């Protein structure tokens, strides 16, 4: 089993079985996983808490992957998102990338690939956060007269 990866992940897919199993497997690898089967639900969850990575399926009934991506990005521009492209259409994938998705994976998902991608995002996010806190500290240092 791979080394444990402590990341907080949100999975969004309409296939409950898929989400359930994938969550289970990710949790076995030490990740904290939240799951949503509908776009609206995912948007709500993303508002309440922050995730290291959000994995969204492109094709979903109702609010589809692209729409969900857009809404999450609106509320939380820093969210790191991986698209799952079951459809494999270049067009939708490019569209997703344009809307701010970090990466995409083709279904069926290879566990190794997914973990790698999540890891990358987490590292990136930590760097961003560090940079951000550094900036904040600098800002505080600048604004507050000690």
């Amino acid at each position: 089993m791979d080394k444990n990866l402590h990341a907080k992940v949100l999975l969004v897919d309409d296939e409950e079985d898929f989400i359930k199993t994938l969550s289970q497997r990710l949790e076995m690898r030490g990740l904290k996983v939240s799951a949503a089967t509908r776009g609206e639900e995912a948007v709500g969850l993303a508002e309440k808490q922050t995730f290291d990575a959000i994995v969204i399926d492109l094709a979903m009934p109702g609010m589809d992957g692209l729409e969900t991506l857009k809404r999450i990005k609106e509320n939380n521009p820093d969210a790191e998102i991986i698209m799952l492209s079951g459809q494999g259409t270049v067009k939708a994938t490019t569209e997703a990338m344009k809307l701010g998705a970090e990466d995409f994976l083709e279904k069926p998902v290879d566990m190794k690939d997914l973990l790698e991608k999540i890891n990358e995002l987490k590292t990136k996010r930590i760097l961003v956060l560090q940079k951000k806190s550094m900036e904040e500290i600098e800002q505080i240092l600048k604004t507050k007269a000690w």
Partner: protein
Amino acid sequence: MKPLSAFIHKIVPYAFKDVDNFELHPRSYSQVRLLLFFIMIAISIGPVLTTAGLGYYNYKELLQKEERGQLESRLVGSSRSIAALIDSLKSIVIFVASKNRYVELTTDNNLELLFDRIKRQYEFFADIGVIDQDGIQQSYWGPYDLKGADYSKEEWFKEVIARGVYISRVYSGYRLVPHFAIAVANQNPVTKKHWVLRATIDAVTLQRFVNTIKTNASDDLFLVDDEGYLQTTSENFGQNLSQLVEDIKPGIQQGISAGGENLFYGMDKIKDTPWSVVLVEKRYIHHEEWTTFRSKLLVIVVACLVLNLLIVYGLVTMLTNLIRKADELQVSMLQEAEHTDKLASIGRLAAGVGHEINNPLAIINQKTGLAEDLMLLSPDFEHKETISGCLKVIDQSVDRCKAITHRLLGFARRSNVQYENVQVNEVIKEVMQFLENSMLHSRIRLELKLQEDLPPILSDHLQLQQIFLNITNNAIDSMSKEGLVTIMTHLVAGEVRVVIQDNGSGIPTDILPHIFEPFFTTKETGKGTGLGLSITYGLVKKLGGDITVRSHVGQGTAFTITLPIKSEDHDQN
């Protein structure tokens, strides 16, 4: 207009209608041909026949009118000349019988001397006699002894006394020689008594005269008396003094002879005589002109008919063939469109299926993954190895399914074509390099017949590679060892044509229409996805080209790929 067009639609035979589905209801080309033929013949020959008929009857009428006019003038001329002859004869007799000569002519042999004198001048005088008021012939000179004959009871004697001049009909009389008499009555100025001078004239005179005025040998000109007895011999109606059987009325008539010939009868009464002149013309004067006209007309009409027939036949054959070809083209285009449509919808269906299958596939994938994870975490137990093996096989199968769905989606995906100038020959050579090994392995020979001066085409290099690779691979697969693959390129009508030909097993006819359909494969299960040719088909179509196949079982298969030199789609961009 609407009821009119509906009416036309109703009366037009089925074979002429514009029907959409000729496959189900093929039109009868023989019917089209026959109808067209008759319509065109009627249209072309109708006016010819009408004109010819009009010309025929008008000319005939014209000729007959002229004929009639000529006949009339000849009849009148003849009757006038005969009247003139009779007049001159009459005037001789009148001259001889001057009023006061009765005594002179009845005494001595003066009558004989007179007759001699007359005879010297006019030899046709047969005899001469002088008759007194009581009808007794007082003096006579001629071949018979008729002196003292009593004519007082005779019709003619009464008439001559009453009217002064009398011309008899031709009769045989005592002498049994046809002759006629001219009698002139006079009144003796001394005795106040009437006397009559009667001269008999040989009828041959009339005959001769008639013969001389008869201009045309074919005509029949004769005299007939009031009672219908012939006065001169007729060529057709018998000798003189016989009864004329034909019923001829005064004026001009037309009739048909016993022999079936057209006849013209003309009859004119000669003034102051008992005779009428009859002119019978057997045929028209213009008979020659008429027959030449008729034969010319016949030749022209027949020539027209034959020419029309030939031209119409040619035209109709051509038209029917054109219609047939157009119909066939329509049918084949419909079939092709149907086929293309079918392929496209199968493609869409395939993409949909591919997409739908991806989701359950993802679940299977995750479930086996989870199972494998759990297997790793759990300690050894019975059958653990077997279960791991099963899970691995499931994983492999999922991977295979993934490959299929991937290709399926690729089939439906219309990724953008990267246009560049491509040398088709170069692409083929590159592809052959890929395949060299597998060909060597199967000992398959490759023959390239590439047209050297092929122009570069605007197309997608990679996709062309894919196309040639797919088809050549199929060719290699279709052959057992030691086959021959021939690849030809040439420029045909502004397009580059690539023929990839093998001498392999060939494709059965029942399979041939389906080879471009997705999932259609004849390879063993698992060896082929059945997508190769359908993807190739899609690619060729995307590049604006066309792909066709011809195959004979046992002899081989030839794929012909036609590629435009400049893609139309690209030109529009």
